[in-house]
């Protein structure tokens, strides 16, 4: 086991993990944040997507030990505490989820897209949203991203400054 200090959703946490343990399992099992889902385990489906310094990353294939010191990890729990993030509001308004399993990764991918392209076209959405959804929510995903773009200029989620002292 190795000791890691990760900044997850603005909270600096000291965690123990295997040397090559994927970030996904550290987030879920060690930090207890189960909003990030395991889908395929081979970076194919995107259910495990989190943001690292605003960039979407498939956490199932990224060793937690490879996260740069000080990097900010944002999971679905860190997007907002009250579902007020424009993408969350648009997602609820458009009733995007069906079973919902893929949606936390889908939402974070959408946040990354909107951070880079505040008013994406359908082609931009098609090129960027590669997450898989077995329920086929893609039309509503597209609709919600356009709605989120209208709701606000979506800023890169800035995690709260990590509190001093490690959280055990």
């Amino acid at each position, binding site marked *: 086991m190795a000791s890691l200090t990760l900044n997850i959703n603005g909270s600096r946490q000291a965690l123990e993990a295997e040397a090559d343990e994927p970030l996904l399992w550290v987030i879920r099992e060690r930090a207890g944040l189960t909003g990030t889902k395991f889908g395929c385990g*081979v*970076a194919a489906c995107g259910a495990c*997507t989190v943001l690292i310094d605003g*960039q979407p990353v498939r956490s199932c*294939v*990224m060793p937690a030990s490879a996260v740069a010191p000080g990097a900010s990890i944002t999971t679905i729990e860190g997007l907002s505490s009250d579902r007020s993030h424009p993408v969350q509001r648009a997602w609820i308004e458009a009733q995007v989820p069906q079973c919902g399993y893929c949606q936390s990764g889908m939402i974070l991918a959408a946040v990354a897209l909107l951070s880079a*392209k505040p008013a994406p076209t359908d082609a931009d959405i098609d090129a960027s949203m590669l997450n898989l959804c077995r329920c086929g929510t893609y039309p509503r995903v597209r609709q919600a991203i356009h709605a989120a773009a209208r709701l606000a200029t979506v800023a890169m989620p800035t995690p709260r400054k990590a509190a001093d002292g490690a959280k055990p």
Partner: protein
Amino acid sequence: MSAARVSTVLGALFGLLLPATAQERLARDEGLQGWRAIESVITHPRCINCHTATDYPRQGDEKRRHDFRVVRGPDGKGAPGAPCISCHQAANGPAGVPGRAHWHLAPLGMAWERTPGMAMRGAQLCAAFKDQARNGHHTPQRMVEHHGSEPLVAWAWEPGTRPDGSPREPPPITHAELVAATQRWAAAGAPCPSK
């Protein structure tokens, strides 16, 4: 006297005795031999899959379009919401996802395809390869350095395993042989085949 020493001395004598045109022909032949080695590598799937002429990368030995319709993006690093490094980490992953730091596509100017999915060959490829207006201002000598020190080039010889656990095939010669061949080609004046 060692065999290598004998060979060097004989080579020098041979060179002195040969007419200039014959020496030039020998140098050109050696350079062309180097070029053929370079061509065998840069048209290999480990290399050309990211040296495409398309707005997307390829994958696999069959050079199929990258899964999920991944795109090149504005800077060769994927779409804004789906950058290459979302999945391709700094090292090959145990699940079969290949990785090396700063994973990205080669610029379109360094595409080695004559048409989507079909590699250029021979004179056409060689001309494109050394055209500094297209290749990122790489002189032949800089190509030697590129082949020797670029981490994504080196990855081709450490390509990891496929998702089923079987090893990916590296190019047909070693990395050191590629660098030596590029050096021979550059030293010979970067000759290209006639066709």
